[in-house]
């Protein structure tokens, strides 16, 4: 089936890079998925409404036509079912990529992912090369069940890898790396970034991967380190510009890109340079991954800290729906500015 389709011309919407056109984060991931489907016949897609409809966010548009129903599998509303089925297919040598229509529903497959998939290699049942991906995050008035950041729920599970990109370049390189990785990878996609024009960029017109487990310095600086990821990379960048203009502060921004495994070296190295650390995440406060990062810096760079590690996060509540509530609940650029100022002035 794959071969049959290779002969077809690639549809416009997955040929942007080939034509030297800039792509959004969503388009970058779509191209990555498409190219992996072409490259490796063992890669296939499963999820709700991903076939004829092309997915709730049109991520898999045109894939059913191109790759056929055996490789683009529309499933019943069964997160336990298709996540488990993906694991079974992976056991048989396939490389399934399953979509959660909204990442919030990954909670339904929590047992299957943490107890079955994540432990398979350890139990002697072998690696489970599969990717679970889906639209994540807030700032979209989605309410409590279409806005979640699920990383903390899985960050604690040995055996998993977690990726949460902030740029089109990283998103394409990381989805490819995730698909090629032999371990199960949770690939979170921020829906507020999906189609943001500001994120459009022209990508290299060649096959590339971004290594899982490596952070990226989004902005160099010497006065203060901000460790962040996903949507907040961009709010932190905004804040950094402002702090440079108004306070002459030189802020370094580390974009984790991969949350599990954490790139301790990148974090510690930056902290040893700036001696001040602000952790910024969109997820709620208590039990968010800021704690783990702070713990590791305390373990590895305590003496380099000139100020207490601080964090900017969402509040400890479900995600409210109404604009004034969501705006108040989520971290905003101004919050980052204020926290950074306080740290710099410490």
């Amino acid at each position, binding site marked *: 089936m794959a071969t049959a389709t290779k002969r077809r011309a690639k549809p416009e919407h997955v040929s942007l890079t080939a034509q030297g056109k800039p792509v959004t984060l969503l388009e970058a991931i779509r191209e990555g998925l498409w190219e992996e489907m072409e490259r490796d016949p063992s890669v296939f897609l499963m999820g709700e409404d991903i076939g004829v409809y092309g997915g709730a966010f049109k991520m898999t548009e045109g894939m059913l036509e191109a790759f056929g129903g055996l490789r683009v599998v529309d499933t019943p509303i069964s997160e336990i079912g298709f996540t488990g089925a993906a694991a079974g297919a992976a056991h048989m040598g396939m490389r399934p990529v399953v979509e959660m229509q909204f990442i919030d529903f990954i909670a339904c497959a929590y047992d299957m992912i943490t107890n079955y998939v994540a432990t398979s290699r350890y139990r002697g049942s072998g690696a489970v090369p599969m990717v679970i991906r889906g639209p994540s995050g807030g700032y979209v008035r989605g309410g*409590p069940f279409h806005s979640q950041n699920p990383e903390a729920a899985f960050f604690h599970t040995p055996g998993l890898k977690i990726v949460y990109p902030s740029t089109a370049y990283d998103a394409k390189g990381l989805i490819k790396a995730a698909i090629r990785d032999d371990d199960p990878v949770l690939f979170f996609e921020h829906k507020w970034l999906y189609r943001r024009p500001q994120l459009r960029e022209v990508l290299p017109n060649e096959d590339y991967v971004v290594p899982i487990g490596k952070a990226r310095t989004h902005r160099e600086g010497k006065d203060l380190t901000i460790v962040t990821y996903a949507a907040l990379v961009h709010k932190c960048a905004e804040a950094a510009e402002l702090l440079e203009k108004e306070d002459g502060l030189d802020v370094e921004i580390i974009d984790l890109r991969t949350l599990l495994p954490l790139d301790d070296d990148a974090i510690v190295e930056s902290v040893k340079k700036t001696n001040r650390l602000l952790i910024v995440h969109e997820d709620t406060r208590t039990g968010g991954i800021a704690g783990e990062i702070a713990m590791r810096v305390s373990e590895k760079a305590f003496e380099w800290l000139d100020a207490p590690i601080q964090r900017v996060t969402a509040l400890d509540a479900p995600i409210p729906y109404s604009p004034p509530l969501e705006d108040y609940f989520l971290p905003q650029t101004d919050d980052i500015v204020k926290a950074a100022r306080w740290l710099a002035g410490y």
Partner: protein
Amino acid sequence: MANRSPAKRASAAIPHGLGRAELLEMYRLVRLTRSLEEKLELLFKQSKVIGGLFRSLGQEGESVASAFALRRRGDGTGDMLSPLIRNLGSMLTIGARPVEVVRQYMARGDSPARGKELNIHFTDYRRGFIGQISPLGDLVPVMAGVALTFKQRGEDRVGMVYIGDGATSTGAFHEGINFAAVQRCPLVVIVENNGWAYSTPTRMQTAAKSFAAKAAGYGAAADRVDGNDMLAVYGAAKQAVERARAGAGVTLIQVDTYRRRGHAQHDSQSYMDAAEIERWAATSDPVDRYVAALTGSGWASARELAEIDRAVDAELDAAVAEAEASPLPEPFEARTDVTGDGPVAGPWYRLDPPDPTKA
């Protein structure tokens, strides 16, 4: 499922022990449902609705008729239901008010969920409805527990829960209905087969010949009914409700209907067959069929119905005006009602001066 011609029904006796006043009330409710959704669609186009808008066009009849079979009281002693996104009619029937729904869709601070939850996801235990959450199927176990408590307390109350053709594939549906059946809880499960789960047709959801066929796997009673025939739906629901009230346990009712709109406003329905939609609209619109039944059987006159329509429009105009005048919530409210221990901590960097020790 051909539309019954008025002639065939002329001078028929009112079935299921219903009275004329009830027939008219059901008409008012189904009309209210459709007109309210039309108003919401208008508000949506004016970008006054925040988030998605979900139509139940073509399904309003079964929502209203099934809920109408419940004991509706408003004082916390009646039956309880939990709706799906397309059961606005059930909500209105058991006591939700249009202004509440409009406020919800407009994310207002005085909406029932105070701006924290969206669309028809709201609850009133006294009036007898429990708002669903998005993860499909979860309310089946929850309503099983509601019905369990009716049984524990020896109350002759009944629970009704709605589940879509698509959501029957969830583990929550399975565990919930099995629990209710084996515990003989007074629960009625309405499986709404509207042909689609988002873009997924029923044949890709399950290989079962029918949803009613699932009942035997739980030892539940089964029924199947033309979902766009309001009186038939009422009859089936009434019977199931009475069975449950009598302690005979769970009934699963498959109501066959059709989702004439997309999953939500943004959905172009490209995957649907326009002719099929047209056919359902022309031959099996639940409101048209109900009107035909009412007038064709001499149970109501066109004038009476027109009066009701006017009253509904007036009520809705008032509701929208009221909702538009409603304030948005206070930001601080984002911190309240997480637990019973008072508001959660606010961000230290928003204090003046910022103070992390106060986080």
